[in-house]
């Protein structure tokens, strides 16, 4: 049986007035049912574009998938025509976005928006869709769902709106749920609730989740596998355990080292990664991270690193990292520190 989702060497580019933006440059991963993939990286690292590419939601003609395959149950989404892609969207693969206030249409009621995919993909009548909507709203924890379903988005609070979005995404029982920074726009207390809700829904429906975030804490909680992205490139990919306790890419080291730690004196300075992420129009030659890498060698400027398998499916885009030591930049020593 083919894997649920298999992405091979996906590359997406945008054509702008100033040049070609290589938003995604060679991403490869596999996702099975019930699994959660965490995609981490700074703003502009290409995480969101990867998700949009999977769903073919790019703005054409500026945005284009230039190479690679996205195999959903064995069929390549990249090669599908518009009508086939549309039948997948919302039905088999669903997406929720960062800001629930702007992601919901302010002039339509909640039940109408949730019902839209039910009517479109499941052929339900308006009445059936309404009943199912009420069920869904109850499932995601919205009180008085029958009344609230007739409300407009602005009448919901931020957390409730995100719950409604989750309900909308799960309406047709999709195989994959892509969540693009779902908690970034919410209060910290609500964040935890929403994440718990998502995990609960996953248990219930068996869907796979792709969780895009810049927050390592969120990933640590939820992800089975982790993919680290930098400047549009995939720099590390492996199981969550591997990536967190045996990180192999200098960028991942930097990320982990920059986390504030509670076991250290608060007067110790934080360790950010020096420098700025590069412009995706002028990606540095060779390894994209080399200008900021403490361990960069002359070779790094010239050779573009390929993903190397360092054991058990753990992929790293740095040929020299095994020669260097993560302890040197203050990252957790191997095997130490459980949750």
């Amino acid at each position: 049986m083919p894997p649920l989702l298999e992405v091979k060497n996906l590359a997406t580019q945008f054509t702008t007035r100033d040049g070609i933006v290589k938003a995604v440059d060679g991403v490869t991963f596999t996702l099975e049912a019930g699994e959660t993939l965490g995609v981490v990286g700074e703003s502009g690292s290409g995480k969101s574009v990867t998700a949009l590419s999977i769903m073919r939601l790019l703005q054409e003609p500026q945005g284009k998938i230039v190479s690679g395959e996205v195999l959903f149950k064995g069929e390549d989404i990249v090669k599908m025509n518009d009508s086939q892609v549309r039948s997948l969207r919302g039905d088999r693969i669903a997406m929720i976005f960062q800001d629930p206030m702007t992601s919901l249409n302010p002039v339509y009621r909640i039940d109408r928006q949730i019902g839209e995919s039910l009517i479109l993909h499941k052929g339900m009548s308006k009445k059936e869709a309404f009943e199912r909507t009420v069920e869904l709203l109850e499932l995601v924890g919205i009180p008085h769902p029958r009344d609230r379903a007739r409300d407009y988005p602005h009448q919901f609070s931020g957390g409730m709106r995100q719950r409604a979005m989750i309900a909308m995404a799960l309406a047709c029982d999709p195989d994959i749920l892509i969540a693009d920074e779902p908690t970034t726009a919410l209060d910290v207390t609500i964040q935890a609730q929403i994440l718990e809700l998502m995990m609960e829904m996953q248990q219930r429906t068996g869907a796979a989740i792709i969780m895009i975030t810049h927050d390592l804490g969120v990933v640590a909680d939820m992800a089975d596998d982790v993919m680290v992205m930098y400047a549009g490139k995939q720099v590390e990919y492996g199981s969550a355990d591997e990536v967190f306790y045996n990180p192999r890419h200098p960028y991942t080291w930097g990320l982990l080292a920059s986390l504030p730690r509670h076991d250290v004196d608060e007067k110790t300075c934080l360790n950010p990664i020096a420098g700025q992420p590069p412009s995706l129009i002028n990606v540095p030659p060779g390894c994209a991270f080399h200008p900021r890498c403490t361990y960069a060698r002359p070779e790094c400027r010239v050779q573009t690193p390929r993903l190397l398998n360092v054991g058990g499916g753990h992929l790293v885009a740095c040929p020299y990292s095994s020669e260097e030591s993560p302890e040197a930049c203050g990252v957790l020593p191997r095997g130490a520190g459980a949750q």
Partner: protein
Amino acid sequence: MLKYVVRRILQMIPVFIGVTLILFVLRAPGVLPGDPVRMITGERGISDALRDQIIQKHGLDQPLVTQYRLYVQNLLQGDLGESYQRGRPVTDILADKLPNTIRLALVAIVIEAMIGVGAGIISAVKQYSFSDVLVTLSTSVLVSVPVFWLGMLFQIFFGIKLKEWTNGAIYLPISGMSSAQFPDWAHMILPAITLASVSTAYVARIMRSQMLEAGGQDYIRTAEAKGLTRRAVILRHQMKNALIPVVTFIGIDFGVMMGGAILTETVFSWPGVGREIFLAVGQRDWPIVMGGVIIIVFLVMIINLLVDLSYAWLDPRIRYGGAAK
């Protein structure tokens, strides 16, 4: 929503008062150069006795405040004064002209709404295409065109030249509201199109920019992510959001149109309030001029208020206002 409605009506009141003040100031002695009696009677020479009578009747020798009070009283009673040149009350003269103006304006609004909205949608959806460039350029051009000149060109082309070229077979009426050769509605065609032309350009422009703005919103992305067809996304999600401000613009544009009406009616000899004002200007018959202006101004204010209120009804954020629970 009730709060919104009440608030808007309350806001209207000072504007209303302000308008009457300005209208009064235009006529009052001493504030602006000019003889107030002349404003009331027109340029015709009048006898001293009549002059005294007028001063008495309108309290022109009284303090300004009293005069203002009298003026507003008269206004509220619908008394717009009398045209001494024609010997009839202004209200009488204008009363049966008003429906003609309104009729013309309504037809123009329908034209403007349909063509403007349609053109705006098309040009936003097919950005940078030929139709988009056409709309963008033509709106700039139409805005720069003097409406009355456009009307005259229509007259020359459709009324005179077309008649010449087809030996009298095909042409359009270019003046008046009715005639022997044509059904009444045919007379409305050219004036309505002329009246609508500049406004249509504005509507198309605004519709286009509203569509583009709505198109960039996140909820459009959500709709696409649900698997809707492009057409469904545009018509159901993008358009509804874009239409709301456009509808209110069309309503407000009514006021501008009323101003343009005087020019169009003059060119096409359409018997409406605008044309009366024009003729009165020629005669220096100021009471009719001011009376016509007053009627139109109040009509516009009422329409603006209605439009404002309709906005509250159309936008659910206001209609069901209220914070999140």
